[in-house]
């Protein structure tokens, strides 16, 4: 009786944005009299970071400091229509809507500044620190705050912008499946190292190593959150989770977190991610969206690592000890596969 180590991998891509389109997102942005901006959305932040992603995209496009922007996702009375936070569409669709809105608001801001400075708006640039100046002549300058005050109280201008982003709905051909499903793909490859106990059937994920290509990373700390949390969910899906353990039977369903199994903080697998950025031509600053795909490669990579370790395929998820032991028995014992590579090149 022994523990057997194995290594498996999987590579995947993921479509960004709701399939087939037809899913508009809208954004409204306006400034208060001091040049502080509010982005009003009906998008949903369910932890993935919609608020902060929106805030950074808005601040970048407006050309103002990020702390001068707050995002409100709360309210159907003030936030214009959005389809919602699903299908990896939030950053892509809403990010683009925010860019459109912010460009319009920035246009008014620069027109107001041009009027104060008596120059052409096309010659103005922002420094991202709250100032607007003439390109090549930094001394000819005005603050965003003074501009907003002038626009509000002298010029009678509204510093505001509206944005919508829509990928038009595509039809699908009945006979060939031809369609315009989506506009960008994210990519990943993940290597899982596991240990399989041939006495208990238990699988321990020893470590994972991955590379993700996600288009432009809007906020690397939040990308890390998604990828690390998603990989944990991937292990959970691969090895533990099901409300119907003897599917398709509906019996034996877990009713609480004692019966519904998920790995806890004591079962964290060390994980290294490398992020690549190939910007999507139609994404906000090239952004794609890692929110959904981050669990996907883990499931097959773990299954393939189990095969490499003990020579059995478990093709029905989750890969439980019971299934592994039955498979090993049916296979006439443990049959390890070839060793693949050496110790990982991180830590």
């Amino acid at each position, binding site marked *: 009786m022994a523990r057997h180590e194995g290594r498996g991998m999987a590579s995947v891509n993921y*479509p960004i944005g709701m399939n087939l389109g037809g899913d508009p997102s809208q954004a409204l942005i306006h400034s208060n009299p001091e040049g502080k901006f509010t982005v009003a959305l009906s998008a949903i932040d369910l932890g993935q970071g919609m608020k902060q992603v929106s805030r950074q995209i808005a601040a970048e496009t407006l050309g103002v400091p990020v702390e001068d922007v707050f995002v409100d996702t709360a309210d*159907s009375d003030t936030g214009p229509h959005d389809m919602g936070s699903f299908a990896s569409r939030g950053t892509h669709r809403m990010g683009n809507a925010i860019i459109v809105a912010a460009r319009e608001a920035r246009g008014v801001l620069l027109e107001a500044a041009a009027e104060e400075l008596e120059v052409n708006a096309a010659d103005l640039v922002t420094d991202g620190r709250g100032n607007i100046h003439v390109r090549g002549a930094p001394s000819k300058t005005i603050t965003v705050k003074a501009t907003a005050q002038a626009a509000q109280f002298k010029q009678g201008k509204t510093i505001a912008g509206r944005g919508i982003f829509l990928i038009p709905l595509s039809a699908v051909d009945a006979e060939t499946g031809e369609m315009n499903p989506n506009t960008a793909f994210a990519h990943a490859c993940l290597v899982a190292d596991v240990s399989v106990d041939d006495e208990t059937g238990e699988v321990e994920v020893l470590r994972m190593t991955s590379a993700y290509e996600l288009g432009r990373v809007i906020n690397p700390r939040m990308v890390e959150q998604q990828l690390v949390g998603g990989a944990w969910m991937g292990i959970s899906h691969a090895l533990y989770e099901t409300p119907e353990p003897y599917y*398709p039977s509906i019996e034996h369903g877990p009713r609480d977190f004692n019966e519904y199994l998920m790995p806890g903080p004591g079962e964290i697998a060390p994980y290294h991610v490398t992020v690549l950025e190939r910007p999507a031509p139609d994404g906000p600053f090239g952004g794609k969206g890692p929110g959904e795909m981050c669990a996907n490669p883990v*499931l097959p990579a773990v299954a393939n690592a189990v095969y490499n370790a003990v020579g059995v395929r478990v093709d*029905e998820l989750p890969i439980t000890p019971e299934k592994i032991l039955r498979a090993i028995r049916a296979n006439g014992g443990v049959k390890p596969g070839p060793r693949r590579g050496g110790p990982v090149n991180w830590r």
Partner: protein
Amino acid sequence: MATMEMRKDLFADERDDNLNVVGKGLQRQDMPGHVTGRTRYFDDHGFEGLLHLKIVRSPHAHARIRSIDVSAAERAPGVKRVLRGADVPVNKNTLLSLINFGKDDEPSLAVDKVRYKGEPVVAIIAESEAQALAARKLVRIDYDPLPTVFDVEEALAPGAPTVNETYPGNYFEYHERFDHQKLRFGDVERGFASADIVMEHRYQMSPIEHAPTETNGTIAAPDQNGRYLVHSCAQGLFFSLDTTAKIVGLPSNMLHFVGGTVGGGFGGKVDSLTEPLAVLGAMMTGKPVRFVLDREEEMLYGSPRGAERIYVKDGLMRDGRIVARYIRSYFDAGAYTRLSSYAAIKCTAHVPGPYWIPNVASDIHVAYTNRCPSTAMRGFGVTAVDFALEVQMDRLAEAANMDPMEFRILNAYRDGDMKPHRRAAKNTALIECVQVAAETANWPLSEQARRQTSHTGGAGERGQVPATVIDTKGQIGRPDTRAGTATQTLPAGTMRIPLSKQPVMDGSRDGRAAPTQVPRYEQVSPAITPPAPPPYTSSPYQSTTSPPASQLPPGPPMPAPVPPPAPAAPTQTQHGAVRFSSVFGTRRR
């Protein structure tokens, strides 16, 4: 221990990294609220006179309802109102009716029949949760159990009990023509015939519970001006608002939804499980009503990730090229459609995974069973297929006696490759991900594999739409046609769906120079030649890591996959073209 590094050296010429805010790891706007306990979720709102709604659920997976007696419950202490199906103004809905997708098939409260264990039948509104729970036991429902079906393939077999009368064959109807969604590209049968090795395996995804730490729930309260204030956990605020307005029969502007901050969703808060009845309860009682699923309800009846059964059949050459792939899959919708019909379309577009294969076909079925309706979950329509495809790829690599990484690189899709849904791939990066993961994991690759790139080796003949064999098997109401294969060959280059006008956001560059620019729209055509990389500005970033494999000079191509038949001139046929709505199956009544 988790670590993340950025490889700014890769694709550097396609980015301008000189941005102020985007790309910075700035603190989340919502973090101060999270660590102080000040973040307000839907349930974190106090109301004077708050009432509580609890559901009486079916104990049977399939049964006719003979009678419902709520008289004792109505007289129970604290009970303010008992709701039945007849009280729901529009007691039949399907979620995607908002975008004209499918037929209304699901009641808010069952009337004549229950179709899964846990289906809501009666709602009790009382002054306290305890009173509502006590009154729940007083509801008398007389059921007449019916035969059940739980397995997707059994559900589609002749003689299976009909689960949902809206779809009498137990399948979602696509395009008013077929009992499944087809994908056809090239000639898979010829591909299998020409292959050295043909293998088929069956994969089974488990249903999975979203298990957000916050369960589904809603507080709905009568507000000033006759409107209703609704604190919602929905993942789509207007999606839920519009669904609720339809079911309770109110103009949408009578509902004021507040939400946007949700305690985890993962797809489990798309279905508007609680909003309509909470609002209806507020309308009926004139009081604020709170309807929150308890954990057991969330786990058993809160709609799981759908289980998908997937058969993958591949034709493989001994040198490692995949020449044909056919996928047959059954999505378990449970008793009602929810979003499963849509997942099948998304899956169809995902086939055959991130690889270029000259002959590809799939038949994706959505089957109704006497199971809790499944719904979207993280990776919807893709997660299960990726599991099947990538385990299959492991098997194929072994059959070809190839390293699994090298096998992926050999078959990877590249810029300009035609995907089976007849749109060219662009912006691809699978090869680079495999190379970097191999390097970091210390998984040796051959020099040849390390020299491949996504930029080259695709397009050309691989960018063409091949002559394609199509068929009419699986017609609606004609189980006898499932095996039938009246076939026809479409000429190479056939395109039927208008190329969509795709907004171009100049995403790869900084857009700040054009302050009032709105998205440009351009006609996107299938690429015949590899798209040129976008014009670039130099990156100030200097890599501190070792030169990546993918920046080695391009090496000799790996063995080229079999080219498809020589393309004929592209033909735009209108035969079989679909109307706007036909993508959504039968038009909604």
